[in-house]
C-alpha cells in the first residue's frame, strides 16, 4: 500500500519524554485525494506534518511520501512536496520576489514562470507587490505569497497548514478553485484546517486526531450520514406522536399537528414508522459535518 499511496503513515509514534504527541498513527492518502487533517491545538497535527518533512524524527513507526521513507530517503520524499507552514516566518527585509526566487531555487522540481504568473494572477499578487519588502505585507498578502511558493514548483503532494488563515473571502474562493484544479491534474493535498465548512467543501476525506490518536477517518459523505438531522413533520390532523421510535430517532418536540425529531443516521426507519400518520409536509434539515466533528472534538466518540 505504501508504494501506491501519496502519503503512508504506519504505526507512527512520537514521544517527548513522558508526553506522547502522536500515538500509533496509521493513515493512507491516495494520489489525487484531498485529505482534511483535523484536530484541536496540540492534537498532534503539526507533529505529524513535521515528521513527513523530516523536521522531527519519529520515536517508532514510519512515514512515506510516494513510497519514499520520509527519514531514510527524505530528500526524495521532500522533492515531491510543496509546503505551506501555518506561519510564514521569513526575514521581513526580503522582497516577495526574493522569497519566490529562493524557494523555487531550493526545489529540485523546476519552477515555471508561467505557472508562477498564473498563481500571481489567481491570488492577485502582481509584480509590483512582489517588489515590496515583506515588512510592508499584510497578513493576507503573506499568505498569498506562501501559497504561491508552495504551488510554484507544481509538486505532487501539497502539505498545507491552515491555508486560508488571513485570506479574504475572494481569495479563499481563488484558493478553492486552485485546489479543484490541482485535484483535476492528479495532485494530492494534505491539508490541516480549523475551518470545518472549508474542509467539508474541498476535502474528499477527513482524518481527525485527538490527543495524538486517530479518532476519525471517513469520507465527507460518510460523515454527513453520521450527522444528526432535524426532521419536522407537519400533519393534516391532530395526532398523538408515535409511541415507539426506531433506533437513532428521538422526538424533541410535539404539538397538535407538528412533530420534530432528531435522527442520528439514515432516515428510512423513521419514515417507515410515520407511514400510518397523516403527513402533510416534511422538512429535513441539512446534515452538518460540523455537528459530527464537534462531537469527536469533545471526546468520547471513536470511528
Amino acid at each position, binding site marked *: 500500500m505504501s508504494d501506491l499511496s501519496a502519503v503512508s503513515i504506519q504505526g507512527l509514534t512520537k514521544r517527548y519524554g513522558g508526553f506522547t504527541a502522536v500515538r500509533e498513527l496509521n493513515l493512507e492518502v491516495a494520489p489525487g485525494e484531498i485529505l482534511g487533517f483535523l484536530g484541536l491545538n496540540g492534537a498532534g497535527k503539526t507533529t505529524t506534518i*513535521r515528521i513527513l*518533512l*523530516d*523536521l*522531527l*524524527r519519529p520515536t517508532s513507526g514510519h512515514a512515506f511520501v510516494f513510497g519514499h521513507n520520509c527519514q531514510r530517503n527524505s*530528500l*526524495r520524499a*521532500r*522533492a515531491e*512536496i510543496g*509546503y505551506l*507552514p501555518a*506561519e*510564514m*516566518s*521569513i*526575514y521581513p527585509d526580503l522582497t516577495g520576489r526574493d522569497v519566490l526566487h*529562493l*524557494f523555487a*531555487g*531550493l*526545489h*529540485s522540481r523546476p519552477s515555471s514562470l508561467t505557472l508562477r504568473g498564473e498563481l500571481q494572477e489567481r491570488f492577485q499578487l502582481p509584480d509590483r507587490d512582489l517588489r515590496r519588502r515583506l515588512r510592508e505585507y499584510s497578513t493576507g498578502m503573506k499568505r498569498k505569497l506562501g501559497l504561491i*511558493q508552495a504551488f510554484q514548483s507544481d509538486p505532487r503532494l501539497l*502539505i498545507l497548514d491552515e491555508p486560508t488563515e488571513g485570506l479574504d473571502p475572494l481569495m479563499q474562493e481563488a484558493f478553492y478553485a486552485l485546489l479543484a484544479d490541482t485535484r483535476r491534474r492528479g495532485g494530492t493535498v494534505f491539508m490541516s484546517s480549523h475551518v470545518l465548512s472549508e474542509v467539508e467543501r474541498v476535502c474528499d476525506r477527513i482524518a481527525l486526531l485527538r490527543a495524538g490518536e486517530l479518532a476519525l477517518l471517513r469520507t465527507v459523505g460518510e460523515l454527513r450520514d453520521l450527522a444528526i438531522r432535524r426532521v419536522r413533520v407537519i400533519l393534516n390532523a391532530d395526532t398523538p406522536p408515535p409511541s415507539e421510535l426506531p433506533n437513532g430517532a428521538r422526538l424533541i418536540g410535539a404539538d397538535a399537528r407538528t412533530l420534530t425529531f432528531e435522527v442520528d443516521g439514515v432516515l428510512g426507519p423513521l419514515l417507515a414508522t410515520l407511514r400510518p400518520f397523516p403527513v402533510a409536509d416534511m422538512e429535513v434539515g441539512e446534515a452538518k459535518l460540523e455537528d459530527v466533528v464537534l462531537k469527536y472534538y469533545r471526546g468520547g466518540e471513536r470511528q
Partner: protein
Amino acid sequence: MKAPALFIAHSLKRSRALVLSMGILLSVFQVLLILVAGSIQRSGGFSQIAAMLPPFVREMMGPSIATFMSYAGIVSLGYFHLSVMGSLVGLSIAIATVPASEVETGFIDLILSRPLRRHWIITRTIVVLLVSFTFVLGCMTLGTWIGLSTLSPAGVVRPSVRLIGMLAGNLVLLMLAWGGVALAIAAGSRRRSVAGGITGVMALAMFLLDYIGRLWKPAQSVAWLSPFRYYSPFDLVMGTPLPGKNVLILSAIALAGFAAAYVMFSRRDISH
C-alpha cells in the same frame, strides 16, 4: 549543487551589511592607530609612555615592552586591542548562531521542506564564517597598508608584512575557533539568545582566564584551557615566529566545534 549554492549566496547576502560595516570600521581603526603612532613617534613619546606604565604591566610584558612601545608595536596593537578582539568574537557569535535563529523563527522549516540536506545549514554557516573573517581581516590589513603607506613618518621602522600576516592569520584562527564553539552550541539550541549568551559568557570567562594566567603564576596551570592562550601577539611582535602549536590547537578547536555541530544538527528534532 544549484540549491546549496543559492542558499549560501542568500546567506552571504544577508550577512553582507554586518560584515562590510565591521570591515570598514576595523580598517579605519587601523588607520587611526597608525595616525596616533606617527604622532607619538614625531613627539618622541614612546620612552615616556613606557616609563609611565605601572610596574605590574611592565613585569607582565617583560622585555617585549621595548618592542611594544615603538611605532611598529602600536601599529600591531590594532590586531589585539580589546575592542578589536571583542568585536571579532561578537561577529563570530553573530554568524555562527544563525542556525539557532532560523530554528527559532521557523524559517528553517521552509528551507528544509525543500530537498536540501541538513548538513548544508552547518556548511553554509562555516562558509559564511570563513568568507567573513577573510574579508574583515583583509580589510584590516588593507587599512594597515594604506595607513603605513600614507601616514608613516620618514625613516621610522615599520612592522614587517610577515608580522602583520602572522597576527592576522593567528587572529583568524582564534575567531574560527570561537565560531566553532558558537556553532556547536547553536546547532543544539532553539534560541539564538541562549546560544549567543552561553558563547559570550564562555568567551569572556576564557579571556579572563588567559589574562589572569599571564599575571598570576598559579593560574597558569589552567590557563591552557583558554583558546586565547593560543594567540600570542606580544611574542609575534617580539619577532617570535607563529608557533605551530597555536595553529594546531586553534584549528583543532574550530574543527571539533564544526564536527560537533554537524553531528548534533543532523540528529536533532527541529521544532521552535
